[in-house]
């Protein structure tokens, strides 16, 4: 560990400057306004974020817009649509559907579409499974709602890689489910290394992020509204569709955001449960950077990913203008 702990000297200088700047700002601010102004407390954070969030983003944009020699180019984006064979050689050992993609030069776009499709499926499944769960949890007749919330959180404390790997134990050819099937006299089924297994892993990982925001928006709802609806002659079904569902919409939207965004960029899950036969956009970005060492194309992919996410976020924001769905854990 010793060699990794040694900092380059310029970083020590930077840290020193950072601290000095903060102290100077503090002294100045106290002197100037008799200590009333507290906004300077945000200055270390501002510096930090500029250094570790803004600058890195600018760097990504820089790499996306230059070629290997550092000259300005839009080739990286052109390659996104139409990448030549040599760029995609890497993917020849993947599944047969990739052959077609490579020949057409549409590996990037093919994987992007596949990722969006998988993320969409995952979001829909999470919504279908999660909404009733949240709805039942928010039911005032079930008094243990808050305990249930904790029960949903606890699994997330187990390392998610290990949890995903544990699914292998269940799904393998010699795994628990197949052993069970065989002992019941059925044939064993190929459960692993396909899209369904990947989807299962994604739903497993992201389901709680759908349940929490919906649960929050449902519990925030005034119970008198339901009584009022029933008082006005609505039956249970009416009450649900006309009152409960629209009022929980912010939670649903926030849930969709919290499931869809990370699932588009999932990587690792396809590798474990998909057995490396399929690839999602996150894997692709990682591949371009680490395996291929093509930072420029990788950065372009990251940038496209960011733009896609910002677009879908703004679309979702429009559906929930008040943005009150925000149910963090």
């Amino acid at each position, binding site marked *: 560990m010793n060699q990794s702990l040694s900092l380059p000297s310029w970083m020590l200088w930077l840290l020193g400057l950072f601290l000095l700047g903060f102290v100077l700002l503090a002294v100045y601010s106290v002197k100037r306004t*008799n200590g*009333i102004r507290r906004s300077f407390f945000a200055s270390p954070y501002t510096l930090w974020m500029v250094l570790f969030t803004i600058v890195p983003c600018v760097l990504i944009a820089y790499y996306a817009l230059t070629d290997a020699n550092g000259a300005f180019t839009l080739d990286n984006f052109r390659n996104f649509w139409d990448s030549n064979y040599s760029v995609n050689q890497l993917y020849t050992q993947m599944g047969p559907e990739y052959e077609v993609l490579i020949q057409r030069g549409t590996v990037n776009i093919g994987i992007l579409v596949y990722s969006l499709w998988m993320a969409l499926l995952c979001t829909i499944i999470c919504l279908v499974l999660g909404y009733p769960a949240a709805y039942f949890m928010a039911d005032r007749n079930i008094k243990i709602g808050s305990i249930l919330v904790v029960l949903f959180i606890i699994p997330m404390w187990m390392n998610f890689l290990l949890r995903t790997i544990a699914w292998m134990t269940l799904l393998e050819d010699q795994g628990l489910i197949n052993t069970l099937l065989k002992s019941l006299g059925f044939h064993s089924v190929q459960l692993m290394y396909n899209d369904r297994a990947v989807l299962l892993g994604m739903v497993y990982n992201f389901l709680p992020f759908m349940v929490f925001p919906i649960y929050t928006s449902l519990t925030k709802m005034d119970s008198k509204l339901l009584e009022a609806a029933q008082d006005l002659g609505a039956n249970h079904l009416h009450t649900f569709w006309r009152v409960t569902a629209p009022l929980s919409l912010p939670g649903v939207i926030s849930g969709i955001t919290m499931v869809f965004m990370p699932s588009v960029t999932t990587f690792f899950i396809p590798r474990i449960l998909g057995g490396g036969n399929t690839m999602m956009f996150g894997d692709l970005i990682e591949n371009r950077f680490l395996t291929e060492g093509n930072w420029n194309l990788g950065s372009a992919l990251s940038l496209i990913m960011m733009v896609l996410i910002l677009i879908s976020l703004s679309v979702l924001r429009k559906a929930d203008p008040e943005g009150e769905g925000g149910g963090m854990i």
Partner: protein
Amino acid sequence: MVEKEHLIDLQHICKEYDDTAVLTDINLYIRKKEFVTLLGPSGCGKTTTLRIIGGFEYPTSGTLLFEGKDIGALPPYKRKVNTIFQKYALFPHLNVFDNIAFGQKIAKVPTKEINIRVEKMLELVNLRGYGKRSVDQLSGGQQQRVAIARALVNEPQVLLLDEPLGALDLKLRKDMQLELKRMQQALGITFLYVTHDQEEALTMSDTVVVMSDGRILQIGDPKSVYDEPANAFVADFIGESNIMRGMMLQDELVRFSGANFPCVDAGFGENQPVDVVVRPEDIMIVGNDIGQITGIVQSVLFKGVHYEMMIDTGETIFKVHSTVMQAQGSNVGLSIVPYNIHIMKPMLRPVLPSEGEGEEEEAL
């Protein structure tokens, strides 16, 4: 220039937020042991004035003197004033005792002495035995008392009160008004009080400062402000009034509502437009043959002590207070004694205030 008995002097104080003037040329002095009230509608700048004296805002220009010394740049914790905030701002993580002892602990008063002083304060505000309570368990009125004790225990020379009774219900308000006045007289502390309630201002104050739109309109004792309002705005804001456009025909003769009235004011010149103010209780109802003008009673409302009648003279509708009721639709004569007619220079702005509740705009 500064008189000895002036405790606080505001000279040409101006305050702007982002180029919007909130206070314009405020000149005001406060004497020792005086009860001064800043009165005005929401957004008139009274709270800002108080916050400048407290040290929470700094004036854009002008001088703030405390016992003749400029304190304009001093932070709040170095000023010998204490504040009672709107909604009290008690420290929720401290109990009643620790809330009151807060300032004393900072001043490093010995613990024994703190105990004695806090107990004395609890007694003063009728909260004996409440020391260990959490402030969340107290009612609004009790929280108010803790806030008062927390400020008074530091023996400030001036206590600033920002609509302290605003959150209390009517009955409690009246009790607290009396109690505050009693404490002020017993302790001999200067009070600077902010309210939009004109009745509260008139009941409690030695001096009333009427403000509107960031300016001081009138300074005077309650009686003079009520009886001799400086302009139509003050007249309308303080008490009820009939305000009319009129014409000063000559000294001591004014024409309004289609008739000439003798009055006591002079020096406006001849045939000059003026504002005329008459209080509803100053209009006498007489027989329709001997009145200066006549009118028809449009409506009658019973107000407890008196009746309020709206009387239409054709030119004007007068609001009249009287203990004798006139039947609706009857024809009556009206008469006004000369010294009850108040003549003022016309205001440039015809906008009259509506009595607004709620907090003032504050930029932090």
